[in-house]
Structures are given as structure tokens and as C-alpha cells.
């Protein structure tokens, strides 16, 4: 038999659907990835150009004036380290962490090894080291901000306090004001997994950070009473449980906007205080806006009739 006729009906496959999409239809993350791709392309082109130009200059210098090249490679010992950071780390920490030999010349510094030493501390998100001739090393640090604190054992019998950043990184905080650390709630209900000298990042911290930021900005007075936030029920029931000095249990649902839940909590606490002397034992904000189960420290038969405006 021969090949099939060419007039067979064409079936359209999903692969025929154009995947091109205008950058304005992309999300912020997508646009950032696109920009990073473009920047990478540009950087590659510039780097290749610079290598080519540098090679040409070296070749020209070697050909015309070889002594000049030898003189250029002699750098002076490091005289100054300039630190710029968006956080709390200081010069003393920087010098201690980098542990430099004072006799080292600027060109002898292993920039990559130094950067690894700096980023080994979980507090440093990014470190950029720049040689400024003739004898200055410029260090730019981008630090993580702590959201909650926790106690854990790591390399010793005693439990230590660690801080947790919004991306889930668990680290030894350094240089923070004691008041700031004490104002942060403790984190509970998480499983820490060892990784190298520290712990693996904790999942689900973005949502917890969102809740804490909403509470801190929206109801700072209430937030000041928060003592423990627990993520124990987060993956199973989608709940974050908060323990405060006023209420032993406030349950937030991660499926609903935290702003409205915080507002409801504030209203319930204010109204309860106004209408009854009995302290609140539990508030469950995770079941939706229509009904919020509230438990008081009082026998069930003696409950006051409380209904809150929605």
C-alpha cells in the first residue's frame, strides 16, 4: 500500500496553542524571572566583552611594556574594611567572622571563601564583597529579619534560642536588641530537621509571617500579648494556634484572609470584656465568618447570652 492521502483531517494538538505571553500578563515573579534572564544575557555579553578586552590589553602590555604589568599586580596590605548592611550586624562581627590575616594583600583575599564564611550565618541572606583599590575591602550585607523565636538543642546539652525568618531559615540571632527578641512570640508545633551545622528551613512560614505582620500592624496592643504561635495543625487542618496572656487558645484559619480574622478577634475580645467578667478560654476563627465558636472559663450551664454583630 502507499502512504496515506495528504488530505487527512488535521487534528489540533495542545502543542499548537501558542505559549508566548506578553510580559504584562505575567505575575511579578514571572516578570522578575524574565528580567533576571535578560540581565544574565547582558551580563554574559558584558563579561565576554570584558574578558576579550582584558586579554587584548594584557597582550598589548606584554608586548610593549612587560615591567608595567608586574608593578600593577603588587597590591598593598588591607587597610580598611567598609561594612554596609540593612540589618544589625556590626564591624566587630564582620572581622570576627572573616578572621583575616592583617598582612594579607587585597589581591590575596579569596573573595569566594570569605563570602561563604559570611553567608554560613543564617542571618546573612546575601553578601557582596568588592575590592576597592588600593587597600579597601567593601562588604555589602543583606540580612534576614526575624519573625518568631524558638528553643532547640544544637551541638550541646542545653537548649538555645534561635530566631526564624519569614523564609523559614532558623538562625542564631546576633546584634538584636533584647527588647526586640523578647517581643517576638515563641514558635511551637514544628519539627526541626538538622542540616549541616544548622536546621533545614521551616515550611509554611510565609503564612505565619503574614498573620504576625497583620496582627502587629493592625492590633499592636493585642499582638503584644501573643506568647506562643503553633503550626502543629497547619498542614493537617490549615490552622495556626496562638496563645496569648489573655486567651489560652486563638485559632486562625490559613484559608481566609488574616485581616478579617484579626478584626473579628479584636471585636470579640473587646465585646466579651465589656459584657462578661468571665475570661475567654478559646476563640476559633477558622470555621468562617458566619459563626465563631468562643469558649469562656465558665460552666456550660451558666453561659451568658452573647451574640456579636458581624
Amino acid at each position, binding site marked *: 500500500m502507499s502512504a*496515506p492521502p495528504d488530505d487527512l483531517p488535521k487534528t489540533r494538538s495542545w502543542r499548537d496553542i501558542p505559549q508566548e505571553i506578553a510580559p504584562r500578563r505575567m505575575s511579578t515573579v514571572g516578570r522578575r524571572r524574565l528580567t533576571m534572564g535578560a540581565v544574565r544575557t547582558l551580563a554574559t555579553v558584558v563579561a565576554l566583552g570584558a574578558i576579550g578586552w582584558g586579554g587584548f590589553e594584557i597582550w598589548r602590555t606584554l608586548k610593549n611594556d612587560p615591567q608595567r604589568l608586574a608593578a600593577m599586580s603588587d597590591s598593598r596590605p588591607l587597610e580598611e574594611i567598609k561594612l554596609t548592611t540593612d540589618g544589625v550586624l556590626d564591624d566587630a562581627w564582620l572581622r570576627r567572622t572573616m578572621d583575616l590575616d592583617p598582612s594579607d594583600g587585597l589581591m590575596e583575599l579569596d573573595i569566594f571563601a570569605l563570602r561563604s564564611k559570611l553567608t554560613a550565618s543564617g542571618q546573612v541572606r546575601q553578601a557582596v564583597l568588592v575590592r576597592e583599590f588600593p587597600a579597601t575591602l567593601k562588604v555589602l550585607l543583606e540580612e534576614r529579619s526575624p519573625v518568631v523565636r524558638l528553643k532547640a538543642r544544637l551541638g550541646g546539652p542545653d537548649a538555645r534560642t534561635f530566631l526564624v525568618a519569614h523564609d523559614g531559615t532558623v538562625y542564631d540571632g546576633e546584634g538584636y536588641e533584647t527588647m526586640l527578641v523578647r517581643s517576638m512570640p515563641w514558635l511551637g508545633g514544628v519539627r526541626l530537621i538538622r542540616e549541616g551545622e544548622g536546621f533545614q528551613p521551616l515550611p509554611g512560614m510565609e503564612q505565619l509571617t503574614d498573620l504576625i505582620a497583620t496582627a502587629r500592624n493592625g492590633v499592636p496592643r493585642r499582638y503584644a500579648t501573643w506568647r506562643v504561635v503553633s503550626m502543629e495543625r497547619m498542614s493537617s487542618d490549615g490552622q495556626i494556634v496562638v496563645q496569648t496572656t489573655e486567651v489560652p487558645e486563638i485559632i486562625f484559619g490559613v484559608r481566609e484572609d488574616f485581616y478579617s480574622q484579626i478584626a473579628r478577634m479584636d471585636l470579640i475580645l473587646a465585646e466579651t470584656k465589656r459584657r462578661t467578667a468571665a475570661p475567654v478560654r478559646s476563640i476559633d476563627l477558622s470555621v468562617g465568618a458566619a459563626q465563631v465558636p468562643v469558649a469562656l472559663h465558665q460552666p456550660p450551664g451558666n453561659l451568658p447570652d452573647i451574640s456579636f454583630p458581624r
Partner: protein
Amino acid sequence: MRSKSRFIGAVEIGTAKVAVLIGEMVRDGTVNLIGFGECQSHGVIKGLVTDFKSASDATHSALLIAEQNAGVKIDEVYLAQSGGHLEGFYNQAAASVNAADNTVSQLDVDTVCRLAKAKALPEGRTVVHHIRRPFQLDGKMVGPNPEHLHGQRLEVGYWTVHGSESVIANSIHVIRGFNVLVGDMILSSLASGTMMTTPQDRQHGALVIDIGAGTTDYVLYRDGGPSVTGSIPVGGSHLTNDLTLGLRVTEGQAEKLKIRHGRALTMTRDKSEKVWLNGDFAIGDRQFSRRAIELITEARVRELFEVVKKKLSAELVPEHCAAGVFLTGGTSKLPAITDAATKVFGIPTVLGEMPPGMDDKLNRPQHSTVLGLLHFGLQNRASGGAAGRQRSRGLLQKLFTGS
């Protein structure tokens, strides 16, 4: 070595959750699972994207979490496709063997395959999968490659799955909004079916039903390969909805009752037996009849299985489904659901199990689809399927897609 690896993101945009699993495909054909991200889904109803921005935000969050978890950037995505817009039909073609000595050539195979696949679709429909059934040579079933065999008449049939072009384009554009390409699109049922069954099960005949939140996908295996697939827009969220209406509670409360007290077969005989909504005597806590909850969930589960049975109609013969029915998906955790399925299909039913050695975090029925996406994609690539035939991307394209 990392430079020789490709990082594939298996993405399932479901009604209740968006799940992303990152696999590192190395040159020797193996895949390492290196990252996982999951997020509450928004803007997706019954498997269809109804709110582009919300669906994009949720999907991109899950992709970001997975990338951060893996510490790599995704090169391309294998996307699961589900929903009521998917339909399938069977088309068969036959051709005479061309050579004088009746030896089947590659041209004969290509010809009969092209003929069997050539069927015009209505406007606005696009093919998602062509699933080939075994070749037949002079009426006898032969292996996957009949080339060099002797015979006169070569036949083959394809189960073609097609879907709404606009719906599929929406889901592709959700992924493209993250600036990553969709490398392959795989039916959810085929993905989870690959994970839940062994080659022996598929050879003996098996039915895999993946009950998600908004949709239920099924695949019937015969003679070692998928024979019929389907998707119905009913899932676990409908059970919740029924409880919401039947018991006059909120959606959140109904979900709680379903998880704690729902059953696929009514066990409670005592009509007066009550269960508490929260059980903490708090304001707003209420009592409900346990039997009423079980009756509501049982009715919907039975209806769901009846619909699947009706859709499969003559294709589902117990003798050709010797390995039984396998249930997976989040709703398969409902107690007594295997008994309910056995009652409806008349075929022994089991809960699908992941292959041994799976990480605890992933060893859950609701993750069978994303795991299956990578597995199926890898198989497809190894067998020179659509994914394997892709034109390799140029340097500039790789740079611009951020991979």
C-alpha cells in the same frame, strides 16, 4: 552532575490545592525528587481556571515554595489536565501491508497510525492525548512494534482525549505567567494510574479512580495499557456542599464534619446518636445526627461511582478487570469507600498504594497525581514520546526563561 540534569516541575492545579513536585532528571534516565511545594488553590472550580489572577497567584506561590525547597530553578513543567471539558473517543484504522513478502515496514506502521489518529475535531477542541491500543496483525494482537512481522492486514486503534482549547490555554498561560514553558501535558488519571498500578496490574486489567476535590478522574487499563479515560466534574467538595445544604452549616463546618464523621457506607443504625461539631462546649457548638452525616456522604459517593460506571458502560467487564479497582485522591481517605466501590462495580476494590520507599510527606493519596506526572513524563521521554521529541531550546531562550 547538576549541569547534565534538567529540573522538571510536575504541577497539578486542583480545585482544593496546587501541588508542585520538582524532579531532577539525570542523563541516565533516572529522576530524583528534590523539592515539593503546596498551596491552597484559588480561582479554580471543578478543575477549570475561572479566575486567572487568583489561580496564577496560588500556582506561582506553590512553584516558588517548591523552587526554594529544591534550591533550583525549574526548566520546564509537566502539567496535569483534568476537568469536565475533557472527552474521549475511539477511532480504529486498518491498512494492507505494502511489501510483496508481507513484511510490515515502518511506513506501514506510520500509515496506519496516521489514519487512526486522523479524525476531525469540532471547532474549539484540541487533542490532549492519543492513547494507542495494541496493534493487530491479521486479527491477532501483536506487541508495541509490529515492524518486520509477517501479515497482510495491520490494524490499530487510538483512544483520543480532547478538551476545550480555551480551558487548556488558560491553564498553560497560568504556568507561562511564571515564565516557564509547559513541556508536556498529561491527564491526571494517567498520571495517578501510573503510580497506583504495576505493569502486571495493567496487563490483567485495572480501573484507577482518582477522586479529587472538584473532579474525579478515571482510567481503565487493559492489555498492559490505558484503554479508556475520563473525568467527571464531581469530587470531595460536593460531599462538603451536600453536608452544607443538608445540615445547614457553613462550608468550613461541613468540611470538618465530613473529615471527622463522614463515611461512604452508613454504619450507624441508631438515629439518636449525635456528634458534636467541635466538642468543646463553646458558643456555636452544635450536635448533629451521625446517621444523617453518613447517609448524605454515602448517597453522594454512591452516585459518583454510578456515574463512573455508566460512563464506562460496556468497557467495564469484571473479567477484564482482574487486578481490581484502585482508589486514590484526597477523597479516597473517606472510611469504607472501598466497600462502597465494590458494591457499585462488583469488582474487588483497594486503596491505591505508592511504590515502597516513598518519602512520608509524599506518601499520601492526594499526591499520587504529581508523582505520577514525573513518572509518566519520564516513561514518555524514554519511549520517545512527545516530551522526548521536543526541539532542544537555544542558548538565548534558555537564558531568557531563567533556566
